[in-house]
């Protein structure tokens, strides 16, 4: 385009077919640059007009384009963009004295929950410090059965807590319309009792143990949520606020005092534990009544009707424990550690009676997996590749969520096969060394579970770093020499940090939390080819081969130092 070309506004007139004198069009016929520009403007105007038309046709469309059905609009516009350094990405709702947000920590790439006190802490420093100190105390708790507290602070005068976010369902949702068998109820309550015993040992009280505050997460683990929040909220709130919580589960001493939950003691938690057990078996809270007032009245008198509990055919020991935990006098209740011990003893005996030892985790998972169970029975091959679970910082996670694997991590590898089918599990390390793994087999009706290591403790990962591969080969075992002959002389090619390769039916599928960068495509391809090569050699000996390849790096410097036991 040069000096004599028409300006953009003149070209716009031409582009919108409004070139009165035709001067611009005449010019454009001999000027490629202007023709091109007119075409661009035409497209832009076209795009804007069709956008604008889509709104005028449908008045509600604007609301839709900005995404919100009317009922959910409140959750679409969080009241804050940022709280401290946390980016707010949504609201989870409000409970008790706090607003609950979904947040992301830009420095720590993980979903978190932030609870922000509804009201500003009273304007004295001591009060604010108490709120932060309480938060910090919660942050010192570290147990797989509770939600980890990451941070505590004050935002615009309002104290907040930052917690781990766990997807899952609470007991109220899990057992909305069905009752678990007493043995499952005992196991669940035993798990919760163990968490409570841990926290009570550190001087922290939960303060509101109810079915709503106990979750079963996606891995089937029981998690006690909102730990210490009842107490914290009473600090957040006022000295003498009314007690919150559901009166159906309220310990009599608190109902009678009508005072803040701040005064809840460990025995109050044990009452909550008993109340939850009562609810699991009977489907109602111990102080259930047609109205809140009546519930409170019953709670005040400590009036529990144990009839339904016994009527449900509950084993005697379980009824007795429930009765003791629900004692009106806090001094007559057992401790949480007591409950945990008794329940563990009892459930172990039950398991013994059935002549099968079943891992607790499997039973808990069953709560979540009810739906999956019958699906599995139709389709015995649910697991397409070996599953690698990593235990890092006391968390059990799927490897694909914490890539790369780190030296010092503990791992278990599991794979399901048809009953009785022989299997060899092979680990090819980054140096190209191969070893067949010792595995344990649990036999089931439809499938056998193969697990490495064969001991109960997960195996610790050692150096070298690079790319590791695990193969699961179905068919009769082969000699070490034959196994080594399946390898090349090279060590596996490098993989990007965020990529995991699945090998099944001689096909490679890249997996991982993120789409791989295009720059990494050639790396992924090379590693895939390498894996295919080994696959074709292994298949000379075996019926079927499945595998996983993943990056393996040195221990994270930031991670806690690991000492070998």
């Amino acid at each position: 385009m040069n000096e004599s070309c028409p300006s953009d506004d003149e070209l716009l007139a031409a582009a919108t077919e409004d070139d009165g004198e035709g001067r611009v069009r005449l010019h454009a016929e001999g000027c490629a640059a202007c023709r091109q520009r007119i075409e661009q403007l035409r497209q832009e105007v076209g795009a804007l007009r069709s956008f604008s038309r889509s709104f005028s046709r449908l008045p509600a469309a604007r609301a839709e384009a900005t995404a919100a059905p009317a009922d959910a609009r409140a959750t679409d516009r969080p009241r804050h963009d940022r709280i401290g350094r946390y980016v707010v990405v949504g609201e989870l709702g409000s409970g008790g004295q706090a607003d609950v947000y979904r947040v992301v920590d830009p420095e720590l790439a993980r979903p978190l929950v932030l609870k922000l006190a509804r009201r500003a802490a009273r304007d004295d420093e001591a009060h604010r410090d108490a709120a932060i100190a309480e938060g910090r105390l919660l942050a010192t708790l570290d147990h797989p059965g509770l939600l980890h507290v990451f941070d505590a602070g004050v935002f615009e005068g309002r104290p907040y807590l930052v917690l781990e976010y766990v997807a899952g369902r609470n007991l109220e949702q899990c057992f909305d319309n069905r009752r678990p068998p007493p043995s499952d109820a005992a196991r669940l309550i035993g798990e919760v009792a163990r968490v409570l015993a841990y926290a009570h040992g550190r001087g922290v009280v939960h303060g509101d143990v109810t079915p709503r505050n106990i979750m079963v997460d996606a891995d089937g683990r029981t998690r006690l949520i909102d730990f210490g929040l009842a107490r914290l909220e009473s600090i957040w709130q006022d000295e003498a606020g009314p007690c919150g919580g559901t009166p159906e589960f309220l310990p009599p001493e608190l109902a009678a005092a009508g005072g803040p939950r701040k005064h809840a003691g460990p025995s109050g938690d044990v009452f909550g534990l008993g109340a939850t057990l009562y609810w699991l078996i009977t489907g109602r809270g111990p102080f259930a009544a047609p109205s809140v007032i009546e519930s409170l009245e019953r709670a005040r008198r400590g009036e529990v009707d144990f009839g339904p509990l016994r009527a449900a055919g509950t084993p005697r020991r379980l009824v007795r424990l429930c009765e003791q935990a629900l004692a009106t006098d806090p001094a007559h209740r057992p401790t949480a550690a007591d409950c945990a011990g008794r329940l563990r003893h009892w459930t172990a005996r039950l398991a013994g009676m059935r002549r099968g030892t079943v891992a607790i985790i499997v039973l808990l998972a069953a709560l979540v997996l009810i739906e999956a169970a019958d699906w599995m029975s139709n389709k015995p091959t649910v697991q397409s590749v070996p599953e690698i679970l990593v235990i890092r910082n006391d968390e059990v996670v799927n490897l694909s969520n914490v890539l790369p694997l780190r030296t010092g991590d503990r791992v278990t590898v599991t794979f399901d096969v048809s009953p009785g089918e022989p299997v060899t599990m092979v680990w090819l390390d980054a140096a190209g060394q191969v070893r067949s793994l010792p595995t344990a087999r649990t036999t089931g009706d439809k499938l056998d579970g193969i697990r490495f290591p064969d001991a109960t403790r997960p195996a610790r990962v050692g150096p070298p770093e690079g790319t590791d591969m695990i193969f699961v080969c179905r068919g009769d075992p082969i000699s070490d020499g034959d196994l080594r002959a399946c390898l090349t002389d090279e060590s596996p090619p490098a993989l990007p940090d965020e990529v995991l390769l699945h090998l099944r039916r001689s096909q490679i599928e890249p997996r991982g939390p993120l789409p791989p960068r295009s720059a990494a495509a050639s790396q992924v391809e090379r590693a895939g080819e390498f894996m295919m090569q080994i696959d074709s050699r292994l298949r000379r000996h075996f019926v079927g081969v499945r595998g996983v390849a993943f990056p393996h790096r040195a221990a994270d410097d930031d991670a806690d130092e690991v000492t070998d036991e």
Partner: protein
Amino acid sequence: MLETRISLLERVRDPADATAWGEFVALYRPLLLAYVRKRGINEHDALDVVQEVFARLVPALAQFQLDHHRGRFRTWLWQVTHAALTDGARRRAVRTRAEKEWLDQHESSVADHPDDDWDELYRRRILDVALKRVRESAQPASWACFEGRVLEDRPAAEIAAELGLSVNAVYVNASRMLSRVREECDQFAEPLDEK
């Protein structure tokens, strides 16, 4: 093209920029929610997925090579969203069989290209935000020229008469507004003239 300011996509990668993430979330969250809901995910799970997407974006954006290849960010954001959706469904698949079917359908499709829903929602979101921003900062008369001539396709002479301007001035204003809208769209690596 002259880069008049650093784009949001650049700013959000800078840990020192305190407001960028808030803006980023405000911009993309409604889009992500609309898209995820449209895929038939229930409200609670939709919010889970969206949170998961943002959590993944934090490290991913640091790696994302921002170039001016057309619509690349749009596709890339879709890939991250799609990955979060399928992972979420995989986790939920143990809960409901219906979602297992959803997963079978969507996981097998090659996750390279966004579907039409995504492209449509994405463009609408960007255009909506771009137009709002320009409108808020513009002189009412300038905006009226743009709105009348470009958005509503009314004759320039009619607009000129209403506003007491020359026809030429209507085009000068409309063209200025158009170039501001274009700049806004460029900020999001979303070219205005793409179909």
